[in-house]
């Protein structure tokens, strides 16, 4: 049937939250995502490492369709992201449907991207009120709970400009969690932070990792060892190695992985 949007349920194990099937993307002649196949299961924490320009951020951002893809399929919770298929061709979903899909996927950015004209509280309740149509009372109650959870209960009235980088990133995590996502994406969440603030953000992420499905682009070895179930090494748009953090750090199978690790672990 031409009206099929989601693939037949039998294709996917319901425990698979994210699935990449032969995903390709090009920037001009550069093959940024090269035949990516990947599965992330419920409550799994996946850490992605790779040199800059390897395609690791593009891979992450394609999961909530901030990046378009040229071919292949990406499914989140069994539903194809950003596209529907008709007669074997992919068509981009309507803006409204894409927005709806994104609402269930939390994202945390390298540069926090808090809304500077809104207080911490307003940053958190904006989308729950506008997108999930929550009442202000309910949204604020949930926001208070989340602010407590990230250790910033006393900062609800502060503007982002009045907060440190570490505090801003924790607010950004609370903002993403307020949408009750089934999946959290982190795009180098600590690389814009001063060293002394990295710990407070990683602590929040480690705690979150106990109960959430997470995909994290990060070179923080401490976090990967403590929280990741699996790690992939991406280079030249390909997944070069896919194993556990312990295996990948101590016995990398591929020469390129070893070479890369020797550069970042000094």
């Amino acid at each position, binding site marked *: 049937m031409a009206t099929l949007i989601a693939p037949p349920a039998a294709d996917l194990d319901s425990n698979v939250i994210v699935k990449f099937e032969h995903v390709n993307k090009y920037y001009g002649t550069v093959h940024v995502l090269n035949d990516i196949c990947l599965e992330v299961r419920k409550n799994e924490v996946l850490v992605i490492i790779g040199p800059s320009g390897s395609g690791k951020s593009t891979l992450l951002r394609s999961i*909530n369709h*901030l990046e378009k893809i040229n071919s292949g399929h990406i499914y989140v919770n069994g539903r194809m992201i950003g596209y529907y298929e008709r007669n074997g061709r992919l068509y981009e979903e309507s*803006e*409204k449907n894409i*927005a*709806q899909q*994104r*609402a*269930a*996927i*939390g*994202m945390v*950015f390298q*540069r926090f*991207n*808090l*809304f*500077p*004209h809104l207080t911490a509280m307003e940053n958190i309740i*904006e*989308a729950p009120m*506008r*997108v*999930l149509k929550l009442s202000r009372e309910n949204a604020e109650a949930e926001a208070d709970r989340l602010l407590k959870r990230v250790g910033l209960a006393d900062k609800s009235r502060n*503007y982002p*400009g009045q907060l440190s980088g570490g505090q801003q990133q924790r607010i*950004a995590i609370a*903002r*993403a969690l307020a*949408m009750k996502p089934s999946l959290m994406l982190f795009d180098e969440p600590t690389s814009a932070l001063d060293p002394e603030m990295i710990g407070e953000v990683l602590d929040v992420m480690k705690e979150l990792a106990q109960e959430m499905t997470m995909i994290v682009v990060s070179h923080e070895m401490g976090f990967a060892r403590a929280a990741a179930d699996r790690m992939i090494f991406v280079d030249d748009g390909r997944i070069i190695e896919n194993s556990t953090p312990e295996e990948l750090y101590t016995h990398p199978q591929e020469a390129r992985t070893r070479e890369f690790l020797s550069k970042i672990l000094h």
Partner: protein
Amino acid sequence: MYHFDWAVFWKYLWPGTALQDPLIRTGLIVTVVVSVVAQLVGVILGLFAALGKMSKIGPLRVIAEAYIWYFRGTPLLVQMMLLFFGLGVTHIYNFPDLHIGAIVISGAIQAGTMALAINEGAYMAEIVRSGIEAIDPGQLEAAKSLGMTYGQAMRRIILPQAAKVIIPPLGNEFNNMMKTTSIMEVISAAELFFAFTQVNARLFKPFELFIAASFYYLALTTIWSVIQSWIESSLGERKSVQRAPGFFQRVFTFKGAH
């Protein structure tokens, strides 16, 4: 030697006596009201033209670009004549006088205001666009990642931030607008400059009268400068945005007009 007519000069310079002349009184009101209305409509048109120009939809982009291209590329005087006389003579549209209670808004005032607004929209479009483009693209991405649509992200996230960038040049546009309303004289819209030309036709004292006229425009733009400084400094308070220029700097510094 020219005999300067102090009596006429003082009569038309001093508001207490000048505003007793119904021509001048009405002219002043028309100039202020037309400026405000044309500027407001211009901002709205500019917003839509800016969004159109940045749209992913090809035809919208073409329409917006054609609009900006034409109205920035031709003289306002020509646009106004075309709108008022051009549409009138072809019977495409004759601007009829509008009666609202005891107030009559002449067709010329309507056409003039419309021409000013449409022309202003083309300039505002560029100002709004540069304001939106000054906002970090990460803001739109964050809004999208939270499930907001483009419209929601614009209204709630991007435009409130862009407003801070847009408001200072918008204030300068309004300063220009109050002076540019004088162009409506060519279609005999009863604004301030037209009023002075009418008085001059009766008295033939162009030197005295147009100095007096300058005084009124200077008063309007100076009052606006004060309001503008006040708006900008209250906007700048919460953020560490660069402080708005002070009153003296604003009044006595030359700023190019279009």
